[in-house]
């Protein structure tokens, strides 16, 4: 990103005739003519300094610590025993379950995000129509967003328990499960993972639906009228007029969901955490297994760096596609 080159035209923004309506960026500086940059920065520091300290101290510095630790040999008790080069990375990649875990992470992200976006498009369509009681429905859709993901997952976990779980009872009652005690969904890595996907979709729907709703409000009514006049049916109007208008809303929703789902720990931790082995793990749960179960902070750091790089790539794509700096 060429941020520094972005910054210079804005310095002289008003003079260049670059239109910036509604954004009151230049104020005193313009009237007083050009001022020394150093003094401007000094003036800004008391206002942005605390934010910089927090961002550098607790977000960026730990990232540096993590990169450093990924090349160190750290004992189980936490003592740094010196450099090991890339050995931790070799351990990460040579772990026999690494590639299955990697593949499962991709399945996890792709399936959850794709299903979330498709369902949210439908939900937003319903919530955008006028009907009595719409406000209550909209408020209900918020609940999984505000509620703790751990707690939402736990109620599903309980429901899936054999013998007394309420979801199992329901599945038995409607005849989908033959055995009277239900099925041990959370005992088997494949089914526990599948149900985790369902929960992940459920908790991702509110944000996605609301983002799409915001996008739908930007679709001009006249264009819809015009499409109707031209004889376009609802489906054609949706594909031809509405969806193209939703492009940037969808870009935001997809990318933020990818980040959130990739970083998601609680759902799999609750659903699959008590299953032995590594058949339901993603990169994120594996990092925590290294830290918590095996006390290998060095190897965990190496895997975290791998995850971090993946996140940075996604963020780069985000900045590229959505161009959030344009709005500043």
């Amino acid at each position, binding site marked *: 990103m060429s941020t520094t080159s972005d910054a210079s035209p804005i310095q002289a923004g008003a003079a260049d005739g670059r239109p910036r309506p509604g954004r009151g960026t230049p104020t005193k500086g313009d009237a007083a003519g050009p001022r020394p940059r150093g003094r401007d920065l000094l*003036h800004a520091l008391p206002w942005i300094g605390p934010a910089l300290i927090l961002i550098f101290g607790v977000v960026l510095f730990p*990232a540096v610590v993590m990169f450093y630790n990924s090349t160190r040999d750290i004992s189980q008790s936490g003592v740094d025993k010196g450099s090991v080069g890339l050995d931790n990375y070799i351990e990460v990649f040579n772990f026999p379950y690494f590639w299955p875990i990697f593949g499962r992470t991709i399945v996890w992200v792709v399936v959850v995000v794709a299903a979330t976006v498709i369902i949210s498009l439908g939900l937003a369509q*319903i*919530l955008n129509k006028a009907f009595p009681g719409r406000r209550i429905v909209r408020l209900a859709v918020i*609940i999984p967003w505000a509620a703790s993901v751990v707690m939402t997952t736990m109620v599903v976990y309980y429901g899936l328990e054999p013998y007394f779980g309420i979801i199992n009872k329901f599945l038995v009652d409607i005849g989908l499960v033959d055995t009277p005690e239900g099925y041990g969904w959370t005992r088997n890595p494949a089914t526990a993972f599948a149900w985790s996907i369902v929960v992940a979709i459920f908790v991702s729907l509110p944000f996605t639906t609301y983002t799409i709703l915001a996008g739908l409000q*930007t679709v001009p009514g006249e264009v819809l009228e015009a499409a109707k006049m031209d004889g376009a049916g609802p489906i054609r109007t949706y594909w031809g007029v509405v969806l193209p208008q939703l492009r940037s809303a969808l870009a935001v929703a997809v990318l933020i969901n990818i980040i959130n789902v990739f970083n998601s720990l609680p759902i799999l931790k609750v659903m699959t955490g008590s299953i032995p082995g590594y058949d339901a793990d993603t990169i994120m749960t594996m990092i925590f297994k290294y830290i918590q179960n095996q006390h290998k902070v060095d190897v965990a750091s190496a895997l975290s760096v791998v995850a971090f790089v993946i996140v940075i790539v996604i963020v780069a794509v985000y900045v590229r596609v959505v161009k959030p700096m344009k709005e500043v």
Partner: protein
Amino acid sequence: MAVTAPAFETIAPPAASARKRRYTEDQVPLGKVLVRMLAGFIVLAIFVLPYVIMFFGSVKTKAQIRSVDPTYLPTEWHWENYINMWSTPETPLPQNLISTIVISVFATLIVLLVAMPAAYYTARFKFPFRMVFLFLVIVTQMLQPAVLTSGLFRQFLAFDMIDTWAAMIFINAAFNLSFAVWIMHSFFAGIPKEVDEAAQIDGAGRLRVLFTISLPLVWPGIVTAIVFTFVACWNEFAASLVILSTAGNQPLSVALTKFVGQYETSWQYVFGVSIVAIVPVVILFMIIEKRLVGGLTAGSVK
């Protein structure tokens, strides 16, 4: 919240008026309205269902909730669960609740105190590296504690702050700061600078302008930022799981996972505590519901 209601209307009139217009102008046939209501009802039912199961479970006895032939509805309502759950042996729940509250409140306060000046200044004044700063804000907004946990763990170990509330307060504040700056920035930028200038000509200092002129106008943005930060801190899981090792220090989100995989989980208590933890934040979110459409993505949806 009576104060914020009118402010919402003044800041975001287009959405509100458009909604009203659609209700009155469109003459939708009754059949269509009924279909929409039915669809709406199904959506409502699905989204409420897990929490209804939670609530019903929270008033069952242990024998009922672990019964081999479970009932959907509680046969008796055992409200005493809401008192007894606080002394369950698995984890010190009262301390966990206090921990959740302390961490969330202080982290939110820090975010407010740190984000507001930064958002105000970047929206109002230009200075060298302003774009670099805003770029930093956007990028860190995408980073979550989970991916940096091993770094955070080693860092706070070195600071001798592992297993302290202070560590989690700083972590929560830092990771929610960017979003708050971004939201407030877009609100401050939305106020015409003439308002500020008029006040300054009248002799008001910069801080006085901020507190007496700008703040009341951006109040909805601040409320949105506060609610989002508070709810995110309230539900934070990944970093707390690693940083806080003592049972009494852990927030509810971490403490409750200890019930999973137990030989005989007291699900009724898990659900009682969950209801107590979920209801306040859901209410907070509902207060800012109007902001969720549009305000959230703060300019990136266009």
